[in-house]
């Protein structure tokens, strides 16, 4: 996985507490050069705190944090010259234009990319002279990514880059992020969208309550827990789960978002048995469907909760 390749992030037993709140409670992980690494978890899991420690915005309480081979506490300035940062929901100087903002931020760095190239790379050419306050949500996020790239960074941090965007804007941002990886950049992002993590990340760390519960490639995380596929339908009191756990092929069951989920290694057999049982009880399983297990199922399995609640 990361063996043999150069590490750009190395975090060992990082802790960050705010009073009694253990925002980050002893996490250890590494990211190799060229990887897209995602932190997936619900709000309050500690993702943003972690990423802000890595960016040099907050000091860790304990543990060691190395970015690009440098200690974040001892060399924050050298690190800041070489990383790109996009913070969660920042609006910028509202009355400066896209071009002016990129010029301004570029002036903070020794090494800088020409503003025009940046504007082209995030496809904001038509809005180059627009005030940032007049951009749409998706355009603002693209500007914010362009600002993270002004110094041609080796490592880019994206904190919930698509939160609050409509599906189309999200898709276009995903393409942009994939483009970063194609250009050889290492990307660390946080998200609470499992589709996003699945789509973009080489490896994912699932976080909850300040701890990393599981880490690895998405397919690996799913495969590690679920060889089965999921049969699901709208939960119905007339179809008690305990009666279904013994159906053919079912390995385990779960309740999630008003749905009953049966994990099965024999989908055809399970559905046949389910329909027969339902018929016997004179109920109909509504919105019946089948899917591969997803990161959502992994999260549910790890925490007993759905990711979005």
């Amino acid at each position, binding site marked *: 996985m990361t063996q043999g390749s150069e590490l750009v992030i190395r975090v060992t037993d990082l802790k960050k507490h705010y009073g009694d709140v253990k925002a980050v409670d002893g996490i250890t992980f590494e990211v190799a050069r060229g990887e897209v690494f995602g932190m997936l978890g619900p709000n309050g899991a500690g993702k943003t705190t972690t990423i802000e420690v890595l*960016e*040099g*915005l907050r000091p860790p309480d304990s543990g060691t944090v190395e970015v690009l081979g440098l200690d974040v506490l001892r060399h924050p*300035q050298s690190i*800041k*010259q070489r990383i790109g*940062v996009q*913070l969660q*929901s*920042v*609006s*910028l*100087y*509202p*009355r*400066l234009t896209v071009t*002016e903002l990129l*010029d*301004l*931020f570029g*002036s*903070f*760095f*020794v090494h800088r990319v020409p503003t025009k190239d940046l504007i082209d790379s995030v496809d904001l050419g038509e809005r180059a002279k627009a*005030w940032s306050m007049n951009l749409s949500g998706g355009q603002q996020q693209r500007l914010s990514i362009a*600002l993270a790239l002004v110094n041609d960074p080796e490592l880019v941090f994206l904190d919930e880059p698509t939160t609050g965007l409509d599906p189309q804007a999200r898709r276009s941002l995903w393409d942009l992020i994939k483009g970063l990886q194609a250009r050889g950049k290492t990307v660390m992002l946080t998200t609470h969208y499992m589709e996003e993590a699945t789509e973009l990340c080489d490896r994912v760390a699932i976080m909850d309550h300040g701890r990393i519960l599981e880490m690895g490639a998405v397919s690996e995380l799913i495969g590690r827990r679920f060889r089965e596929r999921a049969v699901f339908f709208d939960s119905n009191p007339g179809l008690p789960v305990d009666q279904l756990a013994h159906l053919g092929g079912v390995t385990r069951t779960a309740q999630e978002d008003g749905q009953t989920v049966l994990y099965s290694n024999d989908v055809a057999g399970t559905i046949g048995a389910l329909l027969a049982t339902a018929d016997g009880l004179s109920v109909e399983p509504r919105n019946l469907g089948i899917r591969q297990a997803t990161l959502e199922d992994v999260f549910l399995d790890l925490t007993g909760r759905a990711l979005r609640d």
Partner: protein
Amino acid sequence: MGTLLSLTVANVKSLVRDRAALFWTIFFPIMFVFLFGWIFGGSGGAKISVGFVDQDGTPASGALRQAFASVSLLSLHDGSLDSEKAAMQHGEVSAVIVVPAGLQDALVQARAGNKPSIAIQLFGDPSQNQTTQVVQGAVAQVANGFNLEAQGGSAILTVSQLTLQSTNISSVAYLVPSILAMALMQLGIFAAIPLVQQREKGILKRIGATPLARWKLVGSNVLLRLMVAVVDAILILGIGFVFFNVQIVGSLVLSAGVVLLGAASFLAIGFMLASFLKTEEQATGVVQIVQLPMMFLSGIFFSFDFLPGFLQTIARFLPLTYLGDAMRQVMVNGTQVAPLGVDLAVLTGWLVVCLAIAARSFRWE
């Protein structure tokens, strides 16, 4: 330096493009100058009221009084030297003419072939230049006529000019430096709003994630405000001069120094407020709560002496009291509330204390 400059340019653009901010920092004080200038300034075509002090009390001085009374521009106001000087300080008269004792004697001497000389004293307000010049002209003319009439060519009467500063609400010269003081106060205190706004929006934090040194972020804000202070000063004093004939009689260097010290002190207050305020709404409210009472209690629009005792006590702690006082002393030679050294010391004190508090408590996010 390059970064500081580009950040300052960004701040200037943000200010210039924000019409509300621009109104408060530049147009509002200018509006005040015109408003107060028109209300209190224009003597228009009306007569100039002049105090007349007759210390001779003889037929000769009576004749001289007649001569002055016949000048259509002047309206005479008789009284003792003390009462007329007081009247001038309260703005009831614009100048005071004093005819000293010995006029009659001098005339007698002149007839006997001697060449006596006696000086009429004229008190004028140097910052009220136009009025003073008119009165000077009239006095010189009357004295000339008197000399000619009295004895062939020998100048018995001379005019010695003295200055007396009036400090009263009707004087535009009092108001112009005061309005500049108000503008600097608002400029500094209002600086809290964009700072809180930039913190609330995460701009300060975002810039904190770049290698930019924090002092440059603060420095660019200070530079912007000092630049606006200079613009305000030039506009307000310029308008005072062009439209209302108020001249700076003191040192320009000292005036500029007081402007910058005043701006810096109030900027420190603004930064201190920004340290404690969390949201833009809060900042907007608190800034008004601080600046409005200060504006009315600091004796910048009317003399301090008009305030009831307990308000005077409050006013003695307000930095604007001292900035206004320093400005008037330095610019128009105004009578002082406190010695200039005290004014400057109080302003420096506010600057140091507020800056120390801001440096300790300011939060970047």
